[in-house]
């Protein structure tokens, strides 16, 4: 399962609560565990509390209730911050600084001695492909270049734990791939990484475990495999119009001799029939029925749920079937 090999967690929170004023309840009791050496993805709709959670871990904001540890020290302990790398969302570097100076300055603020910083800056500029721009003022950078420098400064202190809030925001596809590679390498080096991103496809490529935050609470947490359990499906591709005929025929109430008796969910999507089961044995009779009906089966394949599928399921209200509205809990009726 997960890459957690030690009993000690990089991050552990219990019942983290954050209220802004009386009305806005950004976090409503977050329990989270990030293992050391694990690349962890934090996802959720806008206003779910992702950045709030990250900011609490980084002591940028205080918490209303709850407790937790970061690298074994209580949340809020400033001393531990020197061992953490952080790239905030919408970060802004002073325009008068040059790329290399940004890395040097934040390295110094993390307590890295000058000589080490100098050596490290060159290496990091190389990694994020910004060596040529090291002597250009940041104000002349594009958004993607600022992200690259931001990533480099987050790594200058050789952190044990790296927190990246929307690291690929504004970065072109080539750059995104490079950033993904850097993140993967960090995980391989045994560093814990927390990535907060909207780009689910990217998280899927690098994260070992994820947590889906909805309205200030962790709706789901686990490895991608754990979250995918019970959400796999088979897809049968047919000719136009045939998918719905087959669905009618195999559904338990759809014919005299139903092929599906166990009540699996069926969804017709254009010319594809989706059967929500992970058991190949369930699909056999459906194929037999198609052959019996003389339908042409173009393809049949098992489909593992994407992170997007899992995400959509987590943010969909089970009673209405509608995706939850964005924004934090504002204490309307029914809320805690």
């Amino acid at each position: 399962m997960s890459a957690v090999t030690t009993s000690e967690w990089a991050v552990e929170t219990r019942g983290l609560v954050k209220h802004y004023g009386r009305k806005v309840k950004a976090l409503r009791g977050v329990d989270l565990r990030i293992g050391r050496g694990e690349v962890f993805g934090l996802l959720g709709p806008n206003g779910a509390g992702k950045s709030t959670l990250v900011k609490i871990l980084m002591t940028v904001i205080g918490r209303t209730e709850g407790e937790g540890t970061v690298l074994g020290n209580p949340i809020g302990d400033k001393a531990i911050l020197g061992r953490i790398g952080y790239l905030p969302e919408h970060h802004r570097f002073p325009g008068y600084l040059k790329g290399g100076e940004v890395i040097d300055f934040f390295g110094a603020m993390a307590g890295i001695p000058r000589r080490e910083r100098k050596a490290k800056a060159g290496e990091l500029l190389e990694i994020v492909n910004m060596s040529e721009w090291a002597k250009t003022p940041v104000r002349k950078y594009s958004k993607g270049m600022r992200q690259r420098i931001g990533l480099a400064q987050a790594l200058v202190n050789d952190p044990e734990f790296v927190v990246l809030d929307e690291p690929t925001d504004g970065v072109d596809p080539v750059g995104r791939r490079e950033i993904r590679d850097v993140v993967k390498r960090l995980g391989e080096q045994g560093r814990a990484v927390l990535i907060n991103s909207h780009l689910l496809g990217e998280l899927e490529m690098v994260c070992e475990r994820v947590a889906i935050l909805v309205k200030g609470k962790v709706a789901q947490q686990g490895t991608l495999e754990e979250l995918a359990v019970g959400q796999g499906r088979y897809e049968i591709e047919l000719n136009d119009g045939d998918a719905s005929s087959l669905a009618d025929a195999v559904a338990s109430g759809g014919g005299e001799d139903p092929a599906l008796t166990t009540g699996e969910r069926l969804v017709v999507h254009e010319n594809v029939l989706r059967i929500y089961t992970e058991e190949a044995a369930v699909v056999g009779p459906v194929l037999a029925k198609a052959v019996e009906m003389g339908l042409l089966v173009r393809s049949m394949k098992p489909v593992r749920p994407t992170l997007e599928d899992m995400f959509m399921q987590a943010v969909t209200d089970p009673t209405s079937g509608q995706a939850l509205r964005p924004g934090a809990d504002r204490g309307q009726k029914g809320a805690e």
Partner: protein
Amino acid sequence: MSLAITQTRAMLVDAYRELNARKLFWITLILSGVLVLVFALLDIGNGSITFAGFSIDIPVDPDRKLFFNLAFTQIGIGVWLTWVATVLALISTAGIVPDLVSSGTVEMLVSKPISRVRLLLTKYAFGLLFVALQVAVFSVGSFLVFGLKGVTWEPRILLAIPIVVAFYSYLFSVCMLLGLLTKSTVAALLTTLLFWFAMFILNFTDASLLTMKSSSELRVDGLRADVTRLEALTIEGLEAQGSDAPDAGDTEALDDSNFYLASRRRNLAAAEEEYESWAKWSGRVAIAKTVLPKTSETIALLERSLIDMTEIEGLQQSGSAWEDEAREAAEERGDVYVSQREASAAAESALRDRSIWWVLGTSLAFEGVVLAICCWRFTKRDF
């Protein structure tokens, strides 16, 4: 410890880069240099002022050292450093805190292993350091110019550095608090200028009330002396006439015998009442000033140190014909005339009597309170 040194050094370099990026810092420094150059080219002596070879005759022949000390305190400090350069410095540094707490920057800094109080106070200290640098360039420049010109080697000129920095620090602490609360450079700058103006008005009111009080006091003293003199004259006169002279304490009998004495006594009572009133208001303003920063008086400390009161009095012209007429008219009314010059000198002397510790101590206490509020606010705030 090495962590703190590494961070402080980085913040110092950053503060320098930030100021370096603001052209205004260099413009102010160059203008300071120009003013020092003006001092270098200016000279006085033998009844004329010379500037870069041109000379103008003047009717008086003041002391050369006093002239340059006055030029330094009145123009160099009084006009340039405390008005023009202060406004320029405020424009240069007002953005330090709003930039620090702006979204996207503050997260980067407060997430580092440094306490928020240290972060804020270091930024504050570096803001002051650069102002100190400006004043130092100007003061050391002036000190050298005065010395090399053979006017005077006056090390007290260098007192301008701590004095002007103290003065600036009152304003900068207020500017920092406002920057923290509003997150806006323009709002912080404008409200600080407003605060400074309010302090200026308060100081002006204080000085005016003190002048009125001093003037009243001098009038009371004059009238009291007159009354005593007339009482003695009256008793003497009555005794000379061979009549029964009343006791010195029997004011009624004395007043009945001398019309002038009665009218002076009435004037004295009115003057005493007026004095009480001025003293009451002056006292109230002084109490209000105790809890507020004393911007003008802090700057005046330099003048107090550099220039002796008697030297200035020597420069002032003695009573004019107009004043003599006013004095005679007042005497005819049974009153005492107090000239504006005398009242101002008395008020100036009263101001100079205020202790340095009251001027600096209470102002720095105010600054301390403002800084404590800043630190508390910055520590508690979510960003």
